[in-house]
């Protein structure tokens, strides 16, 4: 394994979808991922997806993951697991670690589908065992089937915080409350109302002040916030909890793109620093494409479509496949980025395009 027409880094929904489309176009594709299991975060998603049928609405995340893996196998995509990518050289060499030492792979095109990291907060006691990212709790309950705690405080009410809170209930934990620093809930109302129906309180304009405990979390102190997000004196309230989960956003994992010399831009609505890219997800380095959360934090359904688009476009740039498929994927992406929540992301994506054009002019 030292040559590929197209190398894909990351075997999550975006990376696998990219690999599939590129292979369908006739490219020889290798996917590498640092994890021992493919699928990225898909196998932890036990809820049904939204959107239209084309976007596999009503299908649970893990079933989508299984389908992608099956298709990859049928198309002869090589998926190499347990290999963390260490860097990219200007000549298209991808360097990665293996149990036998550092190896490299020469590729004509590289698709980065590295995903995102969870953000975290600092507060008194935030280093106590029992304080963890919401994703860690989700991994433990849905993938490994163990409860990281019995009484959980969820910090953050974006869709990640809302969905994982509900999944904690499904796994048998008690969610003592969700807190949201902003005056309104961040995620979809449908997810929030499921929690409310289950009797879980959601407090807005409130946050965690500290985690209390000798060796591990035994309680939490909440505090109300004013309109400037400053704590309001005298509003402290102590709850009994053994676990604090943080669902306070994700940041794109852009290190490899930076090493590949891709120019970056900063778009808070999409998670922060993002490699500039055109409408086909090609970065300012014409060998390098991005797809999924690295190209702006969205959802698994958008990651899948972006992956497809990057796969088709990267293969096209090598003279493989045909243009026909690109258009259809772009239309589906547009549909996913409509509505109250989607429109903001669509706007942000258009800002990236404009900045990309300026950078390349």
């Amino acid at each position: 394994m030292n040559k590929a027409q197209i190398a894909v880094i990351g075997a999550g929904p975006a990376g696998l979808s990219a690999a599939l489309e590129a292979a369908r176009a006739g490219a020889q594709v290798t996917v590498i991922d640092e994890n021992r299991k493919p699928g990225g975060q898909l196998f932890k998603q036990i809820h049904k997806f939204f959107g239209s049928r084309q976007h596999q609405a009503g299908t649970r995340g893990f079933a989508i993951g299984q389908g992608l893996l099956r298709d990859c196998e049928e198309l002869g995509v090589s998926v190499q697991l347990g290999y963390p990518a260490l860097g990219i050289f200007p000549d298209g060499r991808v360097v990665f670690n293996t149990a036998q030492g550092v190896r490299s792979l020469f590729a004509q095109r590289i698709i980065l589908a590295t995903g995102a990291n969870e953000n975290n907060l600092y507060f008194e006691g935030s280093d106590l065992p029992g304080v963890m990212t919401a994703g860690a709790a989700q991994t433990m309950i849905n993938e490994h089937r163990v409860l990281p705690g019995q009484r959980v405080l969820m910090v953050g009410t974006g869709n990640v915080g809302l969905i994982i809170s509900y999944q904690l209930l499904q796994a048998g934990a008690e969610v003592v409350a969700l807190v949201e620093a902003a005056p309104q809930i961040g995620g979809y109302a449908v997810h929030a109302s499921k929690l409310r129906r289950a009797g879980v309180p959601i407090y807005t304009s409130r946050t965690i002040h500290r985690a209390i405990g000798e060796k591990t979390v035994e309680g939490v102190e909440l505090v109300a916030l004013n309109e400037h997000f400053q704590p309001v004196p005298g509003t402290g309230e102590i709850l009994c909890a053994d676990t604090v989960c943080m669902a306070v956003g994700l940041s794109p994992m852009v290190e490899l793109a930076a090493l590949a010399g891709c120019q970056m831009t900063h778009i808070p609505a999409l998670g922060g620093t993002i490699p500039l890219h055109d409408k086909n997800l090609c970065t300012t380095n014409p060998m390098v494409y991005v797809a999924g959360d690295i190209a702006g934090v969205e959802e698994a359904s958008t990651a899948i479509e972006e992956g497809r688009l990057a796969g088709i476009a990267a293969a096209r740039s090598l003279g493989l496949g045909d243009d026909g498929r690109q258009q259809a994927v772009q239309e589906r992406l547009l549909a996913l980025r409509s509505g109250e929540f989607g429109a903001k992301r669509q706007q942000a994506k258009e800002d990236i395009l404009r900045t990309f054009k300026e950078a390349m002019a």
Partner: protein
Amino acid sequence: MRVHEHPILGQSEPESISIYFDGKPIPAVEGEPIAAALIAAGVRVLRHTEKSGRGRGIFCGIGRCNDCKMIVDGVPNTRTCVTPAHDGMRVETQYGLGRGSCHE
């Protein structure tokens, strides 16, 4: 605690192996992350930091943060959230960088 019954995921795999946590046997599922077996057994403090000695437990759960480092079969700094459990494995709480046990 294990989630044996789940409304969507159904029944979980049974524990069929044992690993040793600081010498005590605890049940585990073959191939699950060591940290999952420890959490199921109620172990939350996995290591103590070098400077302050404060305890650390799992934080990211996916191999990014290094908070779950322990000494596994004599090897310090092993990320237990991404290291599969096998029968008879010896897992020890790590203090600081865990050098002590390397040189013993």
